[in-house]
């Protein structure tokens, strides 16, 4: 059965893996063509000039492509796993051979999704490694926020899987076009949902800064490194408790207004960069759970379907 599934889907699988491999090559190229002058140390050389634009453009394009392609690939491959078989009724031919429905479903799903998932995971991890290892501002990206978060680590691969599973399940019912539409909608909801959920899955850091020093710019929060994700700013009393400022009606004398409301500290809330692995793994796990749910729906649908 595995050979049969491979024979049926190999062109799409090879094509998609080749596309991911091309992405890997582009990533390598970016790392190579990024000039040494992009290094933070280079700017210490007086009078230095440098053209980083080609590498920066390539990096932007890479991020943009890697942002959308896993989802697009997942939707298309998912819909094509079962859609054409449903449309041309070739699933009747396949399921009247010596193979059970579950085995047929498993072989097709694994053959179509596993190589691409693996390739996307490798590219995501390679991208993460390049970002972590680079000492230049061209490749630098915030890992906790879009678009950095979406193209690093296991996120592209798991998003591919969600889109794939949703499209595959939908294609069993609504054929290829239905699978693509449902896959795109589900992937869109997942991306938006994950973006909203991201900060909630890791503990936030709170930093209290003496308000007077903060007002004159003498005290800056330590979170302002390039990768931390700023969440919110507010005010706190002497005990460090949040003060609700929504009902304040401050005039021109803001200092007096703060004092009148018992403000002692400026409160900065943020997600430190050190939380990135936890955030990435948690969102990836949620994506995998969602993909598993859609795969389960698809398998159940096929199990009960009258052909």
């Amino acid at each position, binding site marked *: 059965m595995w050979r049969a599934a491979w024979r049926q889907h190999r062109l799409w699988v090879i094509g998609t893996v080749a596309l991911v491999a091309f992405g890997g090559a582009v990533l390598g190229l970016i790392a190579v063509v990024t000039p040494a002058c992009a290094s933070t140390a280079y700017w210490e050389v007086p009078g230095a000039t440098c053209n980083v634009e080609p590498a920066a453009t390539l990096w932007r394009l890479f991020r943009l492509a890697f942002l959308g392609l896993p989802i697009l690939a997942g939707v298309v491959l998912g819909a094509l796993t079962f859609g054409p078989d449903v449309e041309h009724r*070739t699933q*009747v*031919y396949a*399921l009247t051979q010596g193979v*059970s*429905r579950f085995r047929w479903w498993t072989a097709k799903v694994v053959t179509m999704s596993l190589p691409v998932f693996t390739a996307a995971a490798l590219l995501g991890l390679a991208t993460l490694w390049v970002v972590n290892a680079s000492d230049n501002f061209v490749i630098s990206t915030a890992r906790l926020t879009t678009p950095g978060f979406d193209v690093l680590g296991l996120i592209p691969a798991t998003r591919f899987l969600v889109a794939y599973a949703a499209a595959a399940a939908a294609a069993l019912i609504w054929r290829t076009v239905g699978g693509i539409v449902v896959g795109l909608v589900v992937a869109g909801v997942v991306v938006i949902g994950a973006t909203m959920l991201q900060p909630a899955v890791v503990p936030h850091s709170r930093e209290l800064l003496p308000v007077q020093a903060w007002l004159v710019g003498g005290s800056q929060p330590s979170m302002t490194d390039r990768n931390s994700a700023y969440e919110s700013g507010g005010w706190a009393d002497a005990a460090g408790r949040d003060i609700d400022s929504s009902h304040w009606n401050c005039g021109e004398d803001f200092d007096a207004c703060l004092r009148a409301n018992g403000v002692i500290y400026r409160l900065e809330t943020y997600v430190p960069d050190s939380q990135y692995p936890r955030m990435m793994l948690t969102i990836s796990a949620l994506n995998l759970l969602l993909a598993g749910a859609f795969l389960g729906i698809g398998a159940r649908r096929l*199990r009960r379907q009258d052909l």
Partner: protein
Amino acid sequence: MTIRLEVRGAGKRYKRGWALRHCEVRIGPSSITALLGPNGAGKSTLMAAAAGLTGLTEGEIAVDGRVVDRRMDPALGYLAQDKPLYRRWRVSDLLAHTKDLNTTWDERHARRLVDDACLSLNTRVGTLSGGQRTRLALILVLGRRPAMVLLDEPLADLDPLARLQFQQTLMAEVADTGMTVLLSSHILNKVQDHCDQLLLLQDGQITLHGEVDRLVQQHRMLTGPVSDSLDWLPTADRVEVRTTARQRTVLVSAAPPVLPTDWTDEPVDLEEIVIARLRSTQNTGVRTEGAA
């Protein structure tokens, strides 16, 4: 090859209503059974249920005692009405694919059948004629060496030559292996020469089942005067009564031992029996009491 297909109280309900209801039938080994019935009678549903493609709402179907549950029994082969095949593939790809999908596959046999059908291995399936495609679909079924094949309207849309070639391939296989065949059609004359059993399905119910020879022998056409009453003829035996100005003809499923004066008794052929059954059901609704 010995195999037995049993349909026990099978019923299948779709949203629009029952496609099959109270079906009871047993198909014995090494028989060729024609499953006849008008369009929409439930032939394809019964075939699909036996092949494990469709679940039943009630009852069950068993192959050699193994209940079919949405998976085709390994001893069966099934050819769908629309013969779905991968049209962009070459014949050789399809043979290899079918081999990979089966644990039992007779490659030599399949290749020989392909040669007999004069099909080129490099030809794309989509470029084959309807007859060639049907024959290829049959070869893919026969390559599995099934003990029983279920053929759903295999002769529909075939020209006479293609039909003949298909029948020759099938009959040669039956002669070689003793394979059991259940073959559905809505046109009797396409299948009657080759079948030894008949199964008539109307409105989802089996209205006639038996050996063709026995059915032909039992059914008689009685002709007599219009003025005579039919009280002497049990209602259950009357298949169809036709009255003209001059005479009355009654097709019966069993002729009485003694006929009244002026009545004659003539044999009928299978086509007359089937058409009379279909016509009488059309006029009166399904009659299951006449089912054998």
